[in-house]
Structure formats: C-alpha cells, structure tokens
C-alpha cells in the first residue's frame, strides 16, 4: 500500500482525514500514485496537476524520505521506502503568499 499525505485543504475537499492509502498497480511513480489518488478522489482532479498538461501546479510540492521530488519526471520511480509503504509521499502546498 502506498501512503500519501495530503495538505489540509485537499483533505477537507476529499472529505478524508489522516493519511490516504492507495493500491498502485505496476511501477510506483508520481504519475501512477496521482492517477490512483484521483481515481479514488475525483474531486482532486485539477488541484494537484493541470487537467490537460498533467504538470504539477506551481505551488504544489512533492516530498518523500526527506527529498524534494517536485522536479523529478512524473514517470521516475519513487523511493523504495515509498513503494514499500514504509514512508509516505507528502503532497505539500508551498510556503507562499506571505
């Protein structure tokens, strides 16, 4: 199971609390995790990545295992600890706006 931690506003939108756990078939990548997340919570479509381009929204960041994965290619494998469910993928609203 993949563990995902959403920012507070998106937890409210998805009507969920705490970590989300997801089944991801095949390679565990940012794209495959976000696909699974949006399949379970369709209201999150467009809030983390653009509907059309699928690019990360500018003020959203992806962290895991104390690394910033925001600029990694969406099809790059996530760290093994995330794939094994030992560590969560953190989806973070960037510090911005004063």
């Amino acid at each position: 199971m993949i563990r995902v931690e959403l920012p507070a506003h998106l937890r409210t939108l998805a009507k969920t609390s705490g970590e989300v756990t997801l089944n991801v078939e095949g390679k565990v990548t940012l794209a495959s995790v976000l696909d699974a997340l949006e399949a379970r919570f369709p209201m999150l479509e467009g809030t983390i990545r653009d509907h059309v381009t699928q690019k990360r929204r500018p003020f959203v960041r992806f962290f895991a295992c104390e690394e910033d994965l925001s600029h990694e290619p969406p099809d790059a494998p996530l760290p093994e600890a995330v794939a094994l469910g030992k560590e969560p993928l953190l989806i973070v609203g960037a510090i911005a706006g004063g």
Partner: protein
Amino acid sequence: MSSVRLLVGTKKGAFVLTSDGKREKWAVNGPHFGGWEIYHMKGSPVDQNRLYASQSTGWFGQLIQRSNDGGKTWEPVGNKFVYDGVPGTHQWYDGTPHPWEFKRVWHLEPSLTNADAVYAGVEDAGLFHSANGGQTWDELSGLRGHGSGPRWQPGAGGLCLHTIILDPADPKRIFIAISAAGAFRTDDGGQTWKPINRGLVSQQIPEPTAEVGHCVHHVAMHPARPNRLFMQKHWDVMRSDDAGDSWQEVSGNLPTDFGFVIDVHAHEPETIYVVPIKSDGEHYPPDAKLRVYRSRTGGNEWQALTKGLPQSDCYVNVLRDAMAVDTLDSCGVYFGTTGGQVYASTDAGDNWAAIVRDLPAVLSVEVQTLA
C-alpha cells in the same frame, strides 16, 4: 412572509447571511471553504436552493461547488475548463502576444429557465456553459473567435470576463464584459458576438474610441428594460438605450466617475447606484467618506447616500460584483467592502447599517429574495 438570503464571497471563504423580510436581524453561516477565495456565488432563479460557487486558490486552482439546499451543504462538481481548439494569444501587459491560459472563474450566471444550466466567465477571458449542473463545461468559443481576441489585454486584475447578463426577453441574447476588452453581445445564443463599445472613450489606450480595449468594470440591466444598460467603466459611468449599440456618459455630478459596482433598483428601472472610488491609483473613496450615489433619472443627476456609512477615515474599496438588490416592496440594497463589512439598506439607499463588520475582504455579494 418573504425572507432574504445574501451570498457573500470573500478572500477567505463563503458566507451565507439570512434574514426575514424585515431585514433587521441576520444569521451568519460560514465560512464555507475556509481559506479559499470565493470570487462569486449565485443562486438559480428557477430553484432558489440551487446555488453555484466559484472557489479557487493560487495553490490548488479552481473548483466549482454546488448546493441543493440553499448553501447548507455543498458538493464539488466539474472544474475542467479547457478552451475550445487552439487557444491562440492575447496581448500581454508589455504588448507582446501571450498564450491564453485558464486561471479562474470570476462570475457564475445561472440560467433564467433551467436550474442545471449555468454560465461561467473566466480569466483568461472566455465564456463557458454547463448544461448538467456544473459537471462538465464547454466554451462558447465564438466570443474569442470574434477576431479581436489578439488585441485584448489584461486589466490590473487580469484578463477577466466578469459580467454576464442574460436577456429575460430574448433567450438568445447575452451581454458580457471583459477587462480590458470591453462589452460584447450575442443575439444567437453565443455562436457569434459583436463588440458593443461605441460611445466609450478611454484616454488610457492608444485609440480612445477603439472598437475593443476598454476597461469595463461592470454592467447592470433592469429585467423589465432589457435594452437599457448601465455601465461603470474604469473611468466614466455610461448608459445605453439600444442594447449596447451606443453609449452616452451619465457621470454628471459624481465626485469621481471611477468605480467598480453599478446596480439598478428592483422596481424603478431609472434608479441606479454606484460607489465612486477616488482613482485607479487609489482604490478608496474620495475624501475618505464611503458614499453610495443614487440617480433616480438614469444618470447625470446623482445624490450622495451617507446615513449609516462611515464619513471619515474610510479607505475600503467596493469590488465589481459586490453590490446587489433584493425584490422586496421596499427595495433592499447591499454591498460588501474590502474591509470585510457588508452594508444593507432596506429603504432603497436612504439609510444604511452594517450586517457584519469583520469578514475577510468581500469579493462578491448576491441576494436572493425567498418566497
């Protein structure tokens, strides 16, 4: 007995304010969507419990929320706004071509005849329509296809389509306004559009009487007089008696003719309201006095309405969608400020009182008169 429901969109959430027909005591419900910008909320005239709200932030983009119980509960619906075809370019601030990019929904206008049909005015300027209660959205791309799109340029708030007026007498006629392109009208349900800016004069653009390029801030219509339009332009208050084919200035004795809001009395089609703002560089009232100006003659002759409004040290702004009128016998007029106050008058503007004083900055105010 009738009652009134105010839909207040703010920089940090939505509020629903309700009162009985006396409009003296108000219940404040909210914030809904706390922390998010609510550019606009509006109820369907067909089903008063059907509300639509535009919710956005710079972090997580645009959402559309829908309520079927008058704002008690909400559900997110479709938020996929994709321009039709190849979007092309408009003018950027420096005059260079800039690709059309969706940013947010400024205004939602529910259909006059179908609670599931609703229009959305968006930034970068475009008009979208949903026929299924907001689940999916399609662009009415004839507007951007008018041909003048490459010459449209953003105002200080962005290239936003902020005003949508549906003609109650002609279901195929729609008026819209864009900062800073101007006003447009369709007579065929949105397939083709024409600019309706003849008579507008804007000294801030290279050709002051150009066909497009005017920074229209808001347009209002009385439903019983659909050919008569009133406009608050960046500078100048304007009037048209021929559905926008031509405009005349009616700023008259206003202390300044800059401002954002304009609205029409519910029962007197020649009675209109504006809130003069000192200038485009100073977005606060002249002389630090918050005054609504009312004309009972469709413009030119204006009277300051001050009773109950701060008349010293007031530096708030009143944004373009932040004024509304109810349809009770004694017309109620409401407006919200960037200081978080919502003021109400139950006697067509003669006297004012604050319903709430400390909301986040108010972006929009709509009112529903409930049977």
